[in-house]
């Protein structure tokens, strides 16, 4: 009873100071040193090199001094309680935060050693390389074909109709959707089931041949069968793409990712091999989270 109480209090009354005490039973260890992350946040062959990243919403500091490498062709999962900044951090990687007026991003963010937030950087080119799949399936109210062909068309990837047909077919095949929809490519995409819609969104994202696919809780609106299907798909895609996935499901993180990053109140607490995070987490906060004491 006593531990329960202190855990709850510590979560609701978290002060915005540099160190955050948690449960009484682990007084010394349960602190977050700002800017320090336990485990292995860095990589030998980084796709993204992120250093001292801070994100502000107006006066609020949503991301507090995070440094992380995301390796080439790895699947990294971001986990953490709601409001911990994992989605905000994800949206920095393809500058989707740009459309929010009050959002400011500081620090060094590099994709293949090029600054993402350079003012001369073409955000269109960046987003063509870093695709994104959203929490809620968001197919355009167009035909299935037009949904997948949308990206290739705006980037001029196909010279002929037949090229475009090939891109659409390949993308749908990679997304495991081709067999289900090949006879009704002209049907409107909003009439599909939720799981199909989400796989269509994945097909749409990979149709522009991105190098990275960001996924923001891609299965949270899907039933278990559709979720399993999307997870299989992530496993297949991981052969050719770098994948960053935000998820609330720890089982999902455990199933699909190579590394797992645990976020807490805007801090990056721990990054480690997924098997290590879920079997012997180094940080007491990570342990509390994955054992279900809060989250």
């Amino acid at each position, binding site marked *: 009873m006593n531990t329960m109480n202190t855990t709850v209090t510590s979560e609701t009354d978290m002060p915005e100071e540099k160190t955050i005490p948690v449960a009484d039973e682990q007084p010394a260890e349960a602190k977050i040193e700002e800017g320090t992350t336990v485990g292995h946040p860095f990589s030998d062959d980084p796709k993204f090199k992120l250093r001292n990243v801070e994100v502000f919403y107006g006066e609020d500091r949503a991301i507090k001094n995070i440094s992380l490498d995301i390796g080439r062709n790895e699947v990294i999962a971001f986990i953490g309680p709601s409001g911990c900044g994992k989605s905000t951090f994800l949206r920095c990687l393809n500058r989707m935060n740009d459309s929010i007026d009050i959002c400011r991003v500081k620090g060094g963010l590099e994709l293949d050693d090029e600054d993402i937030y350079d003012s001369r950087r073409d955000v*269109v080119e*960046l987003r063509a390389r870093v*695709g994104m799949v959203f929490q809620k399936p968001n197919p355009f109210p167009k035909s299935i074909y037009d949904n997948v062909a949308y990206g290739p068309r705006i980037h001029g990837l196909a010279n002929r109709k037949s090229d475009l047909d090939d891109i659409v077919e390949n993308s749908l095949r990679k997304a495991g959707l081709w067999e289900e929809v090949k006879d009704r490519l002209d049907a409107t995409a909003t009439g599909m089931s939720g799981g199909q819609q989400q796989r269509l969104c994945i097909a749409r994202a990979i149709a522009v041949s991105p190098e990275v696919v960001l996924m923001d809780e891609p299965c949270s609106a899907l039933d278990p069968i559709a979720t399993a299907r999307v997870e299989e798909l992530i496993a297949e895609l991981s052969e050719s793409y770098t994948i960053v996935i935000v998820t609330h499901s720890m089982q999902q993180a455990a199933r699909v990712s190579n590394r797992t990053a645990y976020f807490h109140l805007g801090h990056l607490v721990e990054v480690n091999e997924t098997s290590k995070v879920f079997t012997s987490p180094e940080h007491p906060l990570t342990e509390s989270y994955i054992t279900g004491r809060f989250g």
Partner: protein
Amino acid sequence: MQAANLMLLVIAFIVVAYGLGYARSRSLAMPLGGIRHLKSLPFYYGARAALWCGIPALVVLGLWAAFQGKVIQTLVVGSLPPEMIPASPGEASLLLSKISNVASGALPSNFVEAPIAEAADRLQALREQSRLYMSILVVAVAVLAGFLGWIRIRPRLNARSQVETTLKWIFFSCAALAILTTLGIIFSVAFETVRFFHKISFLEFFFGTQWSPQTALRADQVAAEGAFGMVPLFTGTLLISAIAMLVAVPVGLLSAIYLSEYANKKVRGIVKPLLEMLAGIPTVVYGFFAALTVAPFISNLADSIGIDASSQSALAAGGVMGIMIIPFVSSLSDDVINAVPQTLRDGSLALGATQSETMKKVIFPAALPGIMGGVLLACSRAIGETMIVVMAAGLAANLTANPLDSVTTVTVQIVTLLTGDQEFDSAKTLAAFALGAMLFLATLVLNIVALKIVRKYREQYD
């Protein structure tokens, strides 16, 4: 007592009934252990007593006030000596107005025949009697019904459901009133239209290209035969509406796109109300702006580049009308563009589309049905608009597609047909009803199409 005073009295009764009902329900509840032993809150018992008191009394008052005039008239006319009983409705109304003039003292009684003076006295007496009976009856009904409502208050009585049912019917009758008014207008227009087509053939009206409705008022008057071809009027209406839409649709749509996608919150907060203010300017102000500022400007401009332009042009009227209906297009379009889910914008931007590509290829197609609805509503507004056209476009029924010419519209002709001296059953006057019916049909079809489109759009994201 006057009906208005009586009404105030009834309202006072209603308030008293409410208070008494409220008090009675409380006093019934207290011995049981508080108002939670009542089936409903005391408010509902009070309201129920008030409804019992007010509704029958007001219904009686309304019926009496509606029919007393007719009944008294019949009685007065019936009591006239047989040789004076009027033969036609026209004569009857003449006679009645004479009688009531005498009764009100506007016409001295020694100026008229004796039976009429007598009838006037009778009218006066009947009116006073009627007023007295009405007062007694209404007060009696209010008190009696109020008392019945009050005495039947029991703790087990479900006053809430009764009050709510009654209120539901009151709301329904308010809604029905609007519908009945519309139906009434439709029928009166339809009947007159049928009468018009007894005088003028369908063929002439629908396919005639001449419009000059000035017919002779009297047999000895020298005047034209009159021509009732609606083609020039409808082309005029179409020409001016088309010019208005040409102004309003691009400007309105582009400003809606700017406001919803590009403008920041601050700009939007200032510009949107200002734009909507355009719809609040009285049309007569637009009218003299068009007639005194825009039309001369256009005609001078046309002269200076060597084109012949009328001083009253379709272009001036249509252009100013277009400005007036910009807010219809922009406000409705802005709403539907905003209703397109943010996830679609994100999805498109995340694929590397620019803001304008997102607008063109995702948001605009998704919002298009709603935008079409807004445009059609604006269009029916343009077709029905009168004041600007009366002032700026002129009265000449020219069959032309030249926007610099002066044209006239259906609405303008209705105004000129029905203002000034007129004979009610002439083809000229009835033509106004026929034109009104056509206009009504045209805007009705546009509105139905617009509503259909808007409704279809609504289903899309559910």
